[in-house]
Structure formats: C-alpha cells, structure tokens
C-alpha cells in the first residue's frame, strides 16, 4: 500500500493505483470525459489533469500511477485554467445548439462547460456528415469530441470491434471500417456505444421522444433471454420511451439490441388484447365480454369437465416468460382447482 494526499486528504491505496482511483478513495471528484472503468485509460480528453507537487507538468489523473508520498492538487488555478483550455478546444468543432440536442441535460460536456464557465468558443469548426443509417441510433460527428469511449466500448467491452477513429487530424471521425455506413458494417446495434457517449454525438433515435428530466426510471430485468440483464426503463406518461443498461451482476452495464431496443414496443402496441374474448364455436368469431362473464365461463367449464372426466382430463401450461409468482400460482391453480398434475412450462420447446 502507498500513501497519497489529494487536496489535503491522505489515503492509502494499492501500489499501481492511478491518481483518479486514489481520488475516488479520498472522495475527491476529478472530472473525466474519456475515462471508462475497467478499460485501459485512454487519457485523450485531458479533462482530468491535476497538479502533483514537485512535478513540472500537469498529469492526467486517469492514467498516471500514484507514487508513495504524492501530494496532489485537483483544483488549483493552473489546473482550472488548463481544463478550461481543454474544453475550449473540445468545443472548437462542436455545435452549440444544445436546445435541440437530444442529449440536452444528460451531456457531460455541457455540464463541464457550465462548471468551467466556457461560454464563447473562439474557434470556428467545419460541418461533417451525419451517419443516420443505423435503425436505432445516430452518429453526429459535429458533436463528437473523439474521446473514444464508444470505440473502447465496442472493442474492449462488447468486443465486436465495429468502429474506430477514421481519417486524420481535424477530419477525424468515428466510423466503421473504410468509412462505410454504420448500417452496412458488422455492428450488432447493441447501442452500448451510445450509452457510453458523454455528448450528443451518439444518441438513440428514441431520445427525440422525451426529455431526460421528464422520465421516471424503473429498474427491472430484461424479458428476452436468460442472461438476466438489469436495466432501467424510462417511463413518461404511462409509456416506456427508452432503456438504459444498469450495472447488473450478469450484464455488467451491457445490453444487446433486443434488450435496449425491442423490449417495450410490444407491451404498448395497439394489438394488445385488453378485454376478455369469448368464441362462438358455430361462427368462429370472438366477442368482447366482461371479466365476470369470462371467468364464470372458464370456471364452470373446467368444473364440468373435471366432474365428468376427472382432474386428469385438465391441464395448465405456464409461461417461461412470465414471473416466478405468476408461474407458482398457475401450477397451484392446476393442482388445487383442476385437481391435475398435468402442469408444465415451455422449457422443452
């Protein structure tokens, strides 16, 4: 263990820890843009610069290993000035129409510019082409700060490797190989890159249907495969409008295309049956019925069949997509009311 002092707070951390990790232990927040937990530090955004006593240059806290006895200052005038300069450069090729940006209110760059008082951008940028080809998200290079959180997510977390920085210098953009459209690449549309983006460069198309501050977040479990991914559904006016990955034990902050983009439209589509339906066997037509009528009919028919043929003439199949509580009650109903052990689920089909 080594001792490091951050803004006057001395903490003990493991050898090899970065200044950023030590600051976290000390409870001191250092701003970052490109930093991605569990991935080798990128240190490209330079936002996390700090001053270490006895060192001539500022260092990036996310990548600089702490040494025993380091005395670190995270908010000196020199540091703040340098960070402001970094933000001005990041903004040099960034549109400032935040009002119409889907990321407004969730944008880390916006927050930092606000905090560091970056108002005017003394540089003029160039307009670059937007890639809107993906079905679920959009890449706007004019809002991109080339922090590579998306690239690192795609290469080191989802390990699909669909995107990287292409072109050079001022023309640099994030794109699939050879500048092909996103939709034509091997991208799986999982959208983990979008969630990693600290600005409005990568946004879900659904973000245009709500404002961040208008939604309630509900933590739940994905209904598709048995990985058990945890996510927040964003609810606005009794309607789910988007999904955000949570750091669950099995998904560790990742989601797939189905979980992120195909896990709620079905529940709120017009095709939902919302009234009990009873079929006329003669005509084959269904008619709408009240709950009491439908439940009375169900109970009386099953009772009649049970009396005539015995409970073994009845069966109840549960749904492997529903909850444990539902399934327990379904098998209980089959056993105690139908008086039948003919209960099963779709495990084998």
């Amino acid at each position: 263990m080594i001792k490091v002092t951050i803004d006057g707070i001395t903490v003990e951390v493991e050898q090899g820890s970065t200044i950023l990790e030590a600051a976290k232990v000390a409870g001191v927040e250092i701003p970052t843009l490109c930093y991605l937990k569990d991935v080798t530090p990128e240190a490209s955004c330079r936002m996390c610069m700090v001053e270490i006593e006895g060192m001539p240059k500022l260092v990036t806290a996310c990548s600089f290993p702490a040494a025993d006895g380091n005395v670190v200052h995270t908010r000196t005038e020199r540091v703040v000035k340098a960070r402001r300069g970094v933000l001005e450069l990041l903004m040099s090729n960034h549109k400032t129409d935040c009002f119409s940006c889907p990321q407004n209110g969730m944008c880390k760059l916006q927050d930092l510019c606000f905090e560091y008082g970056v108002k005017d951008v003394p540089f003029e940028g160039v307009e670059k082409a937007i890639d809107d080809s993906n079905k679920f998200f959009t890449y706007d290079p004019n809002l991109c700060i080339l922090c590579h959180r998306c690239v690192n997510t795609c290469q080191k977390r989802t390990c699909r490797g669909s995107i990287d920085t292409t072109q050079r210098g001022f023309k640099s953009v994030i794109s699939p190989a050879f500048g092909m459209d996103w939709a034509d690449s091997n991208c799986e549309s999982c959208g983990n890159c979008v969630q990693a983006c600290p600005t409005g460069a990568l946004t879900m198309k659904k973000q245009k249907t709500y404002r961040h501050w208008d939604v309630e977040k509900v933590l739940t479990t994905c209904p598709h495969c048995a990985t058990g991914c945890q996510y927040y559904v964003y609810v606005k006016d009794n309607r789910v409008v988007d999904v955000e990955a949570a750091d669950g034990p099995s998904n560790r902050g990742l989601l797939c295309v189905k979980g992120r983009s195909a896990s709620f439209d079905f529940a709120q589509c017009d095709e939902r049956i919302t009234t009990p339906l009873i079929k006329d066997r003669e005509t084959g037509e269904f008619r709408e019925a009240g709950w009491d009528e439908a439940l009375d009919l169900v109970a009386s028919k099953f009772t009649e069949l049970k009396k005539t043929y015995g409970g073994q003439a009845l069966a109840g199949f549960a749904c492997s997509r529903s909850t444990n509580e539902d399934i327990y009650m379904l098998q209980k109903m089959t056993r105690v009311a139908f008086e039948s052990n003919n209960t099963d689920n779709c495990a084998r089909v």
Partner: protein
Amino acid sequence: MTNTIEDITHDSDVILLCGSNPEEAHPVIGMQVRQAVARGAKLIVVDPREIDLAKKAAIHLKLKPGTNVAFANGMMNVFIEEGLIDKEFIADRTEGFEELAAIVKDYTPEKVGEICHIDPEDLREAARLYAKADRAPIMYCLGVTEHHTGTEGVMSMSNMAMMVGKLGKAGCGVNPIRGQNNVQGACDMGAQPNVYTGYQKVADPAVVEKFEKAWGVDLKHLQPGRMATECFHDMIDGKIKGLFIFGEDPVVTDPDTNHVIKALKSLDFLVVDELFMTETAKYADVILPGRSYLEKEGTFSNTERRVQRVRKAIEIPGTKPDTEIFSLIMQRMGYDQPILTPAEIMDEIASVTPSFAGISHERLDSPEVGGKGLQWPCTAKDHPGTPIMHVGKFARGLGYFYPAKYQPSTQQVSEEYPFIMITGRVLYHYNACAMTARTPEINELSGNSFIEINTEDAQALGIVDGDKVYVSSPHGRIASWARVSGKTSKGEVWMPFHFLDGNSNWLVGDHLDDFSKTPEYKVTAVQVEKATEEKECCQYMEVPNIVRKKKKMAKMF
C-alpha cells in the same frame, strides 16, 4: 448453471462451448465470451455450424448434428488414454467411473472422427486443451438438449467435467445457458408434472403431505401428470379435454405444427391467457388479457439461478394481474384462494420451498442484496445464496458418471429427404417473435424466414443466394429464402424458428427425448428445392373476427 456468468467468462483459461451460439441467443453472455478470448482464454467451439465465435476459436469441431454423445465419449477416451483424468476427484467425489471408462474405451478418436465427421487430431487437441486447463467451464445450450438423446448429451457434459475434476470451483462447471428469461424459474416453481417447487418430487409422499398441509387440499388422489409434449397426444386421444395455456404459443413453437393444431382442435375447452391474438389464441374458446413484465411486480430467475426483481412501470387499462386471474378462477372452482400481492406470493413460495426459504421481495430490494439478486439454494433469511454449486460435495452426495452410449438420431437422411435440418435463433428475434416483431426496426433488420444451405449443395440444386425455395419433410412443406454459404456442412441446412412466413416447426417431427420429452428440433430430414412453380405450403389460421361491444376501441396511445 453450476457457476456464474462472471466466473466462467472472467476466471477461465479455456471455454468449451457446445451447441451454443451465445452471440445471437444470449448476446450479453456472447460479449463476455468475446472478452474472455480477448484477454487470452482459449475457446473450443463444438457446433455443426460455423457460428461467428468459431472464427475466434482455437479449435472448431464442426460435428455432425446428433452426435454429441459420441463426441463426449471420444473426449473422455483421450482423457483416459493420455492420463489427463483427475484421479483424486474421481475417487473422492464420484461413482460409476469404471462402468463409463469401459464404455468410452471403444470411442477412439478415429472411430469418433468417423461418427462425428471431425478430424481425430482436432478431437485429441480439444481434449488436451480442456483437460489440462486450470480453469475451464463447459457452456452448452439447446444444441446439446434438443435431441432424442438430449438427456444423455447433458449427462455426457457432466461426465467430461467430473472426469477432469472441473466442478465445484470458479471458472469451471457444467453450464447450461438456459433459453428464455424465466425458463429456470418456470422449472423451479413447480410448473412440471413430476415436481412441486424447488424440484420436490410428486412421487414422494412426505412432499405431497407437506403441500397438502400448506394448501389445505387433498393431493394424494391426483394422478401422475403428463408433460406438455405428451399432453398434445393425449388431447388427440381424448384423454385431455380442457386446457389452460398461460402465455405460451405452441402452434408456433412446438414441433409438428399440424399435430399441435389437431390437438388443440380436439379439446372441449381451451383458455388462453395472452397479450396478443397469437396463432394459439386463435383456437381458444376464451382469451383472457394478460399482462407483460412491464405491468407487474415479481421476479425472474436467470440461467445462473439468480432471482432478480421485475418492477411495474406502466399500466394497461382493462387488464388484471395474471395472479389475480388465477386466484379468481380458483375461487370460482371452490378453492378459497385469497388475492395476494406478488411479494406475499413469494413469501408463500419461500415457506414451501427449502431452496427459496431465504428469498423475499423485501430482501431482494434491500441494500444487503444491493441489486445483485439471490442465487438459489438460499435456505435462510441470512443465507447469502449459492453462486457456485457442488463445492466440496455434490448435491446428490457422489457425482454419478452416467453410462451414456451414442445412439444415432431417429432422423436419418433418405433419397426423398436428403438434408439434415438444424434450427436455431437469430440475434434480432426471440422465439415466436410475439415481442420482438412488434418493434418495426427489428423487422427491417431481420423480418423473413431463411434457410442456410451449403454452397456445393446449392450449386447442385441450381439455387443461388436469395432464391425462394421450398423446404419439406414428411410433416409438411414451407417456403423460405436461401442463404448460400459454407456456414453449414454439405448435406446440412439451418433455419431460424422465429418467422411466421416459413416456420421450421411445421417440418419438425415430435420424436421426443426418452427422459425429458424434449423434441428433436436439431435433427430433421428435409428436402430443399428451388421454387420454380407455386406449391401449396402450410398455412396458419386466418385472424378470427372480433365482435366489439363498443364500435371501435379508441387507440390506447
């Protein structure tokens, strides 16, 4: 799974992936397998198809469908021949080794190579890689289970792991990657004919007595139950007259669609609790509107046995909680079932299920659990759950080497049906598509049936990529669209089972596994031909008319 997703993907040196395509069927597990390869873990892929992960594999055994048991016995032959077995583990913790060893003696790599259509040297190399690794999990999926000898296939997986002592520790184990979100839970909750919750046997009088006491009814007079796949036969035979289906769509998902339809039509009374007018709901006498996971409180149990919370986010007017529907039916049939909240139901489950005794909604929501769920067995309120099973001792005491011999599939090619068809999932859809196909962008990416066919076979049949083809078996004929590549071996084709415009389940026979009654989805002999003229294909029923009470319901949103 005996282990957790995290430990098998993060603490493993080698991963043996059998009949599982997690990149498409379990994408977030697939991502973590890719992470494992990126950090240096070696991957062995055992799959008849060139799945994407095969490109990242150290060894790909592109075996013939239906030969898993021969493959596993071949692996164990090498373990024994080359002295790779864990003698101490076998002696201390298992039984039946000698009998199995005598069986696998005959499964030389050369013989297995012939049965499985693989290179004997590749098999030897795979056996060495897996056996010598310090930590190596077996991950398997429906490619192992959906065979008429699926149970032996599963036993063979555990035989391999036990023989090299790779059970009961991190980064190892026998890990079925379960399919649907709560298929683990559906089995745990006793929705099976032969067990109550937590796999407590119906055949055990003490268990029956316990449930009689808990539920206040006589259960001794109940006859032994039948599994769903058997029930369809019973419906046709007139033994089952009334059926309640909760959220399943067997017309789309079960094998031999014509047979399923015939069974449903034979019923006196069919009730379906559903979100949509599914293919199955069309045959119902009564449809009760169900609720989706977004409209209820509850829990799902994932493939790691991890019980996690589901929380209500929205309300769809007109619907009722499904648990209330079941309770109201029970009441009307004379059983005094109070309407309970999902939290109260979980408390009842915990009270009758030793492996769930420590699980409650309150605890799952507590800071103690911290959003990480609880993995059963969780036997008391202060029990932390069980991430890794069989540590130190097997649940049954000694681990049993099941003496599995290879039996060829019931399905063999013939002149009339010269191709073996395998079925599976694609990334963008889930099972019957009832959920995923209601996101239009998903359908734009993947909206139609297709069939993968080997390039040489396609050339011989005059089929080019994108051609409309007819695929037929003794059970029916469907239309689909050809994807020509080297993904499948010569003589083998692959189809997804999602799409209504050419669903492979019309063609699959209902040959069942002797023990689990699982259909042999992975092996069907079929004919493929270019669609040069219109031919009659299997069709689902037209959407029935609905007479509305009011004129037309207002749009909900």
